[in-house]
């Protein structure tokens, strides 16, 4: 157990160190576009990490997680539309609205479990997707351009790609740290216990619904932040940001990277989006290759990329 804990620490450290050094290295080798690529990857890593809290630790298979990505992005887009550029206001609203949506969706969905929970979260995701299409004032199907990124005083200028990169990096690292604390706390043990054996939890005196709902809200709010960051990178929001296939992709990042590990979903986001980019250069039918890869991972590496890495590290140390 000690071994796996230190392997996890090592993987986490390596991931953060590489991502921290990426912009200077990219500019050194004259491949500055990697900064944009990895900004996007880390934004999805935040979304995947937030899903892992409820999926990997709470056993809640939400198939509508992209909705919060969309809500966070639209919060920035709509506020910018009315000339409210202040980043603290935009991100605050993104967090509050996505948390409120998660509270409502979770309050209803968490009364079900298993396949019903998957279907009902998918249905809510679709409702919010179609709601965004119907927002004609904000571009409807065509989306909404954002003139200026969020304004966090003159110190942080998000028009600069490196600044945005490091903001995303800092938020990802912060969420990783907070997530670690969360899953190890009393609260974390409660949702993990509920995932493991719900009946026993009730018999020992837990009413698990309220804890699950709280976790669902935390995850929704975190994903809302990812959405607000995505709006800043693209300077554009549209309903396609929360298509149901997007929810599926976030799920796949978690599974690919390793459920219930927090750092795994970051690796999963890197692997998924890197594969997507590489494969779509080769063929338009990249999904046909991505699909089998995912099937193989699920079959042969049940704890994902993180599991493969940490097992290697443990073996090497004997």
């Amino acid at each position, binding site marked *: *157990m000690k071994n796996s804990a230190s392997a996890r620490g090592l993987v986490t450290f390596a991931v953060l160190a590489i991502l921290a050094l990426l912009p200077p290295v990219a500019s050194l080798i004259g491949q500055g576009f990697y900064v944009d690529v990895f900004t996007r990857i880390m934004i999805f890593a935040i979304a995947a990490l937030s899903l892992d809290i409820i999926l990997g630790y709470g056993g809640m298979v939400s198939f509508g997680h992209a909705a919060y990505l969309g809500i966070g992005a639209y919060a920035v887009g709509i506020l910018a539309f009315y000339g409210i550029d202040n980043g603290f206001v935009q991100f605050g609203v993104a967090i509050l609205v996505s948390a409120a949506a998660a509270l409502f969706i979770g309050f209803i969905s968490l009364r079900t479990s298993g396949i019903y929970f998957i279907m009902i979260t998918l249905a809510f995701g679709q409702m919010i997707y179609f709601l965004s299409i119907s927002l004609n004032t904000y571009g409807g199907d065509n989306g909404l351009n954002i003139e200026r990124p969020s304004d966090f005083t003159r110190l942080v200028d998000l028009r600069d790609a490196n600044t945005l990169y490091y903001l995303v990096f800092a938020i990802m690292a912060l969420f990783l740290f907070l997530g670690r*604390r*969360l899953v*190890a*706390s*009393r*609260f*974390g*043990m*409660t949702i*993990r*216990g509920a995932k*493991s*054996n719900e*009946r*026993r*939890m*009730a*018999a*020992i*005196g*837990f*009413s698990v619904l309220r*804890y699950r709902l*709280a976790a669902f809200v935390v995850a929704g709010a975190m994903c809302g932040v990812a959405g607000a960051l995505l709006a800043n990178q693209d300077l554009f929001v549209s309903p396609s940001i929360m298509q149901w296939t997007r929810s599926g992709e976030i799920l796949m990042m978690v599974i690919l990277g390793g459920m219930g590990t927090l750092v795994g979903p970051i690796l999963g986001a890197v692997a998924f989006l890197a594969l997507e980019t590489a494969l779509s250069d080769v063929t338009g039918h990249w999904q046909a290759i991505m699909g089998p890869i995912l099937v193989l991972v699920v079959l042969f590496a049940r704890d994902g990329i993180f599991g493969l890495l940490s097992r290697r590290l443990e073996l090497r140390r004997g």
Partner: protein
Amino acid sequence: MAEPLLSVAGLCKHFGGIMATDDISLTIADGELHAIIGPNGAGKTTLVAQLMGELRPDCGSIRLDGKDVTALPPYRRSLRGIARSFQITSVFPEFTACDNVALAVQAHSGGSFRFWRAARADPALREPARAVLDEIGLGHRADVPAAVLAHGEQRLLEIAIALASRPRLLLLDEPMAGMGIDDAARMMSFLARLKGKIALLLIEHDMDAVFALADRVTVMLYGSIIATGTPAQIRANAEVRKAYLGEDELA
């Protein structure tokens, strides 16, 4: 006479046309060890599920300490002092033995909306958990994942989890099910030590254990109670002998 700790009146539950429990009335005094025996399908496990609140009775009432708890969900009954163990081991397999017990301690030490401190490093949870594990003889296995424990150890852990909530009434659903002779003897001596400290409702097939431990015995058959009394009374009861115990066992 003082109010009994638990009093059940007219409890019934049917599944389709089958009466799993039919007009069950019984009382358990504080500190009493009350055994329930009966052949498979007599409704014993259904009764435990109704006492814990996992199954809603179709009729009848359950009172704990004179207060009606018939409509309370399981977690509320747990907070009022009822705990149960399961016939089929029901633990948290990926957690260590100590984690399993600590979770029950945590459930009874206020709300769990605490997000910051590591639960596994919290002496307020770990110390009581280790004390219960030591008491039941699993102290040396505290850091072993529950899934890896031997069957007999898992059965002991099952009881340890239930005890960690410091219940006043513990419902034991065949605690010795599937145990080897040595483990069963360990469990017997543990139950003997526990007796008198808290009220126990013991469902058990091992007649030697039941008659050695119980203050009173209730015999169930096809969902109904056919007799309640001291072990001696039950041994002498003609109806019980005919229905269940078998003549040769008493010869």
